[in-house]
């Protein structure tokens, strides 16, 4: 059971994640008016915002330590925030600045923070195999660290996901797969692309536990994550969770969502996990003053990170040539060992 203090922490993180996306939306659109040009403005390129996904990232990552690994997909900000990724460095990365997590090489779909074992892939489901590898690493080290792979419901038809379920299962690895079901793979509703719309059912085919959390409710998600993460940490193998979330914005900024019924958009806006948690907290006698404090603290951290990021220098063009290898090709001439040096017997 989560105590009220923990719930307040989760609320604050969820508000922070939501505010982050709303502020990034504003920053992103600046310079893209009146004609939207994806390559213009302070944040260029695609931007996939996670407003409406907060309960998933926060409900799961609340139970993780820095040593535990997370891989996130192309919509990673809420997960990164919940995992404790350095918010300033992450923001600077999204703004393409020299002091960003990757010095501006990665951008918003490719956030890497080894300090808290957080990584991303912009290719659907392709974060799953590296999460299996992180679980394998933990097992080989006899550590009780856990790996969590987040993916969207659109990713559950990918070989990389299904193969990962199988490998994690047969090797009994400490991995939790978390499907964030926001109902839409860009424009494709899940009913159009799979007959098994409850992604958790895919677990049965690989003999691992599969649980679906229907409510976009951080407490229910947290409860399910507690079981799955505990199971992995105790050496009892992988689990699959599917959690219902909602896409409150387009697939990417600039997606006019012409394919999406208004009623669906409205419903996504109404089913707000943050409001749900607020109701719960009010029932536990949390007062306005405390809410104000939690909200302003969350927002201040976001504003501080964005302000900081925007003041950071852009990378030098020549930095593009660095980091291809961690061990760049050697300039040393080859020195062939003589037979005498090898110590070999005749």
């Amino acid at each position, binding site marked *: 059971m989560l105590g009220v203090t923990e719930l307040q922490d989760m609320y604050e993180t969820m508000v922070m994640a939501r505010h982050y996306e709303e502020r990034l939306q504003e920053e992103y659109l600046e310079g893209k008016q009146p004609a939207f040009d994806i390559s213009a403005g302070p944040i*260029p390129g695609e931007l996939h915002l996670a407003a409406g996904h907060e309960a998933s990232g926060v409900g799961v990552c609340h139970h993780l330590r820095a040593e535990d690994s997370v891989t996130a997909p192309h919509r990673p900000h809420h997960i990164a925030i919940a995992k404790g990724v350095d918010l300033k460095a992450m923001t600077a990365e999204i703004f393409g600045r020299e002091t960003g997590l990757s010095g501006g*090489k*990665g951008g918003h779909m490719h956030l890497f923070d080894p300090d808290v074992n957080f990584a991303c892939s912009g*290719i659907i489901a392709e974060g799953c195999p590296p999460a299996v590898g992180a679980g394998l690493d933990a097992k080989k080290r006899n550590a009780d660290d856990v790996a969590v792979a987040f993916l969207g419901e659109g990713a559950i038809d990918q070989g*990389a996901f299904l193969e990962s379920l199988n490998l994690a299962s047969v090797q009994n690895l400490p991995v939790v797969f978390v499907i964030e079901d926001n109902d839409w793979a860009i424009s494709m509703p899940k009913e*159009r692309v799979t007959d098994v719309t409850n992604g958790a059912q895919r677990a049965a085919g690989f003999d691992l536990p599969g649980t679906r959390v229907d409510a976009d409710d951080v407490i229910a998600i947290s409860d399910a994550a507690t079981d799955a993460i505990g199971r992995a940490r105790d050496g009892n193998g992988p689990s699959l969770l599917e959690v219902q979330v909602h896409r409150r914005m387009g697939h990417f900024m*600039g997606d006019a969502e012409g394919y999406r019924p208004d009623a669906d958009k409205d419903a996504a806006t109404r089913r707000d996990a943050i409001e749900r948690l607020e109701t719960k907290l009010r029932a536990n006698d949390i007062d306005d003053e405390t809410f104000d404090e939690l909200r302003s603290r969350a927002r201040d951290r976001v504003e501080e990170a964005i302000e900081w990021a925007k003041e950071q220098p*852009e990378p030098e063009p020549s930095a*593009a040539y660095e980091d291809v290898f961690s061990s760049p090709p050697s300039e040393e001439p080859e020195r062939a060992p003589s037979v005498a040096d090898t110590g070999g017997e005749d």
Partner: protein
Amino acid sequence: MARPEEHRQTERSLTMSRAMVEAIAHEMREDDAVFYMGEDVADYGGIFDSTEGLLDEFGRDRIMDVPISETAYIGAAVGAAQGGMRPIAELMFVDFFGVGMDQIYNQMAKNTYMSGGALSVPMVLTAAVGGTYNDAAQHSQTLYGTFAHLPGMKVVVPSTAYDAKGLLHTAIRDDDPVVYLFHKRLMGIGWLPAPDGPKTGVPEEAYTIPFGRADIKREGADATVVTLGLHVHRALAAADSLADDGIDAEVIDLRTLAPLDIETIRDSVAKTGRLVVVDEDYRSYGLTGEIIAGVAEGDLAALDAVERVALPDVPIPYARPMENEVIPDTDDITAAIRRVRSDE
């Protein structure tokens, strides 16, 4: 060389995406065996407008949204093609080729040969390519050379609406697998403004452009610039800027990589003696080296000077200053042309 100028001067101009859609619609009306599979190709009309409006006319059985399962649906296109259909399968970003690569290069590209010609695979694999809008390492590649390197695929890269339509008609009618790579920056998408060049006059009727015929987009006597896709337009801009200085560059648009029209390039180099190859793909083991080798094999003595302008061998970085550094721009091409002319 086929240069139907009367068509290019037609009053009706289309964006590259509209020209492509027109070719697909025409072929689908003519032949029930033609259908289109991809992610977000139905209601969305293709993330890069490659199928816009087709769902309304042809319905979901022929404009098929598929699961995010590239191995399955590209492979299904192979099987359907072998059975007699003429599928078009769209890979949303060429960068996603890795997900379904076995079906592309071990099945689609090889089944004709491995069957000793008993099978044919009449399908088109379309994919969006290219950077210049800061989408970083996993969404900005062109990978032109990768597909052209592996035998068994015909590889098409249009640079204008006119070429896009004619080459797509040819691709759909071709009895072999064709990889049709369209540059996002050329499509005329509302949120990704195109340069002026790709929107051209396009005839309403169907027409084919034969594979293996490069197109001289600009004639010139002083240097040969060989390129493709977006960089045709950057090369033309570079050539225009040099004209004021009395350097008259010829710009050759490859249009297809496999088959490759090396003769047109050799003829041009025989005239100019100076070769600049411009590619938005990685530098090493790729298109630039291939073109230069092909010219050298023809007549080594014809080459007075050579430059290649390509992506350095680094993944494409996100931040603007770094992306601008690695993707060749008009100034890079201008400088390279000047260098091959520097002994004049």
